[in-house]
């Protein structure tokens, strides 16, 4: 099943390149969603079902909505025609090259980069990680979950009060 890994890794990378190369910020944001979907598939291949689902629900869903809101406030036309100066191009090259060096060094010098992942121990091994996290959330940590519910309630009230012109 390695070909699945290559398909989704390629999807994530193509999405990432699309984010950088697109001149229109909205197209960049949508390329980012493609990249997120590829990442989510990779997480699921690692048996991290919750992380994969959160990647789609929270990042591709909620965070992208916020991103698009910021983009909405931008002047898209002027962003498209923007030129980059010598200094910013040089800075980008230095940062990207340094990042590449660090990753190459880590992969070359550390054994952990080549080891196979050991399976999880304990409750998570018998069930999936989602089930284990559900057990913790709704038994041991049931009270913090209620607090989060209240927080979401307060946030809903705040949104409605702030953006409704006249309240009923």
């Amino acid at each position, binding site marked *: 099943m390695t070909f*699945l890994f290559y398909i989704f890794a390629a999807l994530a990378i193509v999405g990432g390149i699309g984010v950088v190369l697109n001149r229109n910020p909205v197209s960049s944001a949508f390329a980012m969603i493609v990249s997120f979907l590829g990442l989510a598939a990779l997480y699921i291949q690692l048996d991290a079902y919750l992380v994969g689902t959160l990647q789609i*629900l929270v990042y591709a869903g*909620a965070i992208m909505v916020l991103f698009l809101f910021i983009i909405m406030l931008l*002047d898209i*036309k002027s962003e498209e025609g923007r030129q980059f100066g010598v200094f910013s191009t040089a800075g980008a090259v230095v940062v990207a090259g340094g990042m590449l060096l660090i990753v190459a060094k880590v992969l070359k010098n550390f054994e952990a980069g080549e080891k196979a992942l050991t399976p999880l121990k304990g409750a998570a091994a018998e069930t999936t990680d989602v089930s284990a996290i*559900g057990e913790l959330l*709704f038994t041991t940590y049931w009270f913090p979950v209620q607090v989060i519910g209240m927080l979401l309630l307060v946030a809903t*009230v705040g949104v409605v009060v702030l953006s409704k012109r006249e309240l009923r």
Partner: protein
Amino acid sequence: MQQEFIPVLIQIVIATGFAVATLIASVLLGKRAKRNQMKDSAYECGMLPIGEGQARFSVKFYLVAMLFVLFDIEVVFLYPWAVSFKRLAVDGGQLVVFFSALSFIVILFVAYLYALRKGALEWKD
């Protein structure tokens, strides 16, 4: 484990293939218009447009998006609950799993009722 995901992959391929086929069909079957800068500009009684016609967005979009984000987070919590419910509450008899989720949903239902009663879900002012 990964063999189970072949149907998901097939579904992705079919969905993408349908979207691509639709787009290609519309290019092949549809009439092609000649585009140039003049034709793309806004037509306002033959006058040349002045400045950017950037549309101003209504705050209603913000309201809908924020409500989506909030209830999206609710779904995030319900997902692990739904997966572990049978094992813990039905087979394990731990009632706290049922009642904590019930109370969580009731709190969020109050939020939904508030938004509904305040008219946040109505598009017209």
